[in-house]
C-alpha cells in the first residue's frame, strides 16, 4: 500500500488574541494515509482534528513539521485535494448546480466540462430535480450533498471531510454516512474524515485515528477489519462493539492522562 499522505511531526500553534501567548492546536502528529484508504479521525471537541485537516488542505501553515502528499510538501491548496465543510460553506446566492460549478470555475475547467460535470455530480448525490434550488430552499442534508458534489466535481485525489454531518440530525447523519460510502466505493479516493462520533468513525473507516484532548496528539491508530461494502447491520456485530469499546476507553483515559 503506497503512502499517499504523510503527516510528519505536525505541530500547529496560533497566536492568542491580545498577546496572551500561543495556543497549541496540534502537537507532533505523525500519520501515514495509504492510497485509496478511508481514514477517520476521532477525538473530543477542540482536540485539533480539524486543524490536521486544514494543514493537509494547505489552508493552515504548520508551525513545525510538514505534510507530504505524493512525495511533495504541501504549501497551499491544490487541485489534488478538495474539502467538505461542517457548515456547508455554500454560496447562498448560487443555485445547487452553480455551487457545484464553483470549484470548477476557480480551477478554470473548460466551460463545457463545467456544465457537464456540475450537472453530473448534482445528480450523483441524489439531487435530481433540485439543481436550480438555492441553499436557503434546501434541507441540511441536501445542502451537504451539494457540498460533497462540489468537492467531487473537481476530481481530487484526496477528499477531506471536516465533520460533514455534524450539523445534521441523527437520522440524516446515518443515511448520509451510508450514501457517502456508496459514492466513495465507486472511486475509492483517499479520504480523511473528521468526526467526534465514535460510531461514525468505526462505521466509515478503514482505520481510525484517535486523538487526545488539546493539545492534540495521536493516541493510537486502529485498523478497522470489517468487510466492505459496509451496511448498517455491521454496527450490531461484536467486532464493531469491540472497536467502539476500545476507542471509548482510549478517549476516556486520554482525557485522564492529560488532566
Amino acid at each position, binding site marked *: 500500500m503506497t503512502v499517499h499522505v504523510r503527516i510528519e511531526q505536525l505541530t500547529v500553534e496560533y497566536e492568542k488574541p491580545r498577546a496572551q501567548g500561543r495556543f497549541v492546536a496540534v502537537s507532533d502528529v505523525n500519520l501515514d494515509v495509504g492510497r485509496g484508504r478511508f481514514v477517520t479521525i476521532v477525538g473530543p471537541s477542540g482536540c485539533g482534528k480539524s486543524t490536521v485537516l486544514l494543514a493537509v488542505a494547505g489552508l493552515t501553515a504548520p508551525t513545525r513539521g510538514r505534510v507530504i502528499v505524493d512525495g511533495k510538501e504541501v504549501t497551499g491548496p491544490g487541485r489534488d485535494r478538495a474539502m467538505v*465543510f461542517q457548515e456547508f*460553506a455554500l454560496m447562498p446566492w*448560487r443555485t445547487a448546480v452553480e455551487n457545484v460549478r464553483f470549484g470548477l470555475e*476557480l480551477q478554470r475547467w473548460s466551460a463545457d466540462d463545467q456544465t457537464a460535470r456540475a450537472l453530473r455530480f448534482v445528480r450523483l448525490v441524489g439531487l435530481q430535480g433540485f439543481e436550480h434550488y438555492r441553499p*436557503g430552499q434546501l434541507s441540511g442534508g441536501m445542502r451537504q450533498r451539494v457540498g460533497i458534489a462540489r468537492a467531487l466535481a473537481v476530481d481530487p485525489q484526496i477528499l477531506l471531510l471536516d465533520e460533514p454531518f455534524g450539523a445534521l440530525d441523527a437520522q440524516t447523519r446515518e443515511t448520509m454516512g451510508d450514501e457517502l460510502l456508496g459514492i466513495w466505493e465507486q472511486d475509492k479516493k483517499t479520504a480523511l474524515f473528521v468526526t467526534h462520533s465514535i460510531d461514525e468513525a468505526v462505521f466509515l473507516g478503514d482505520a481510525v485515528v484517535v486523538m487526545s484532548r488539546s493539545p492534540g496528539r495521536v493516541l493510537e491508530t486502529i485498523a478497522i477489519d470489517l468487510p466492505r461494502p459496509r451496511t448498517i447491520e455491521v454496527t450490531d456485530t461484536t467486532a464493531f462493539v469491540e472497536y467502539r469499546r476500545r476507542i471509548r476507553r482510549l478517549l476516556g483515559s486520554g482525557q485522564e492522562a492529560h488532566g
Partner: protein
Amino acid sequence: MRSARPLALGALSFAAILFAWEAGVRLGWLNPFFTSQPTAIARALLGGMQSGELGRAVRVSVEEFTAGFGAAIAVGLALGIAAGWFRPVEYALDPFIWFVYSAPLIAFYPLFVLWLGLGAHTVMAISFLLSVTPITVNTIAGMRSLDPLLLLAARSFGARAHDRLWKVALPASVPMIAAGLRLGVGRALTGVVIAELFVPSGGLGSSIAYNAGLLRTTDMLASLAVIVVIGVICTQALSALEAQFSSWRTGPGL
C-alpha cells in the same frame, strides 16, 4: 397578497385627508391663500402639463438627479469596494465619509456656486455628495459582513485574491449595496430639490422658489405634489429592487 391591505388603507387615508382639506377650504375654516385646495392644485397640474411647463421642470430635475445619482453610484461603488477590500483604504477614507455624511452639505452652497456657477452643475454636485455616502458606507458594510467560512471554502478550491473578490465578496454584498442604493435615491432627490430652491436651474425646486416669491401657493403646492409622487415612486422602485436582490437571504446561519 399581503401588500394589498396596507395599500388600500393608504389610499383611503390619502383620500380622507384630501377630502377634509377641500371641505375645510369650502367651509371657510381654512384660508386658501395659505393652504390652497386639492381641486385648485389639480387644475394647476393639468394646466402645467398642457402648457408643457410641468414637463420641462420635471425634465430638468430628472436630468440633474440622474447625473448626480449616476455619478454617486459609480464613485460610491468604486470607493466602497476598494475600502471594503483593503482596510487601509477604509481607514484613510473614514474621516471624509463621516464628514460628508453628517455635515449639512447645503452650507457649502456658496462655495459650489463659486466653483461651478449658478446652474445645473451645482445642483448635480450637491445631489452627488448627498447620495454618495450611503452607497459607499453600505458597500463597505456589505463586504465586511462576509462570512469568513465562504472565503475559506473558496481558498480551499484554489481561489486567488481577485477570484475571492469577484466570486465571493461582491455577490455576497449585493443585498447591502441594494439597500445603500435605496437610501441614496432619497438623498439624491432631496439634494436636487433643496439645491433648486437656491439655484434657478428651471427644475421643480426652482419653480417652488419662483412661485413662493409671487405668493402663488397653488403653483407651489402643485410642484411639491409632483416632487412627493416622484419621491415615493423612486423609493418604492428601489425597495422592490432591493427585495429582488436579497431574495436568497432567507434567514440567519446559512
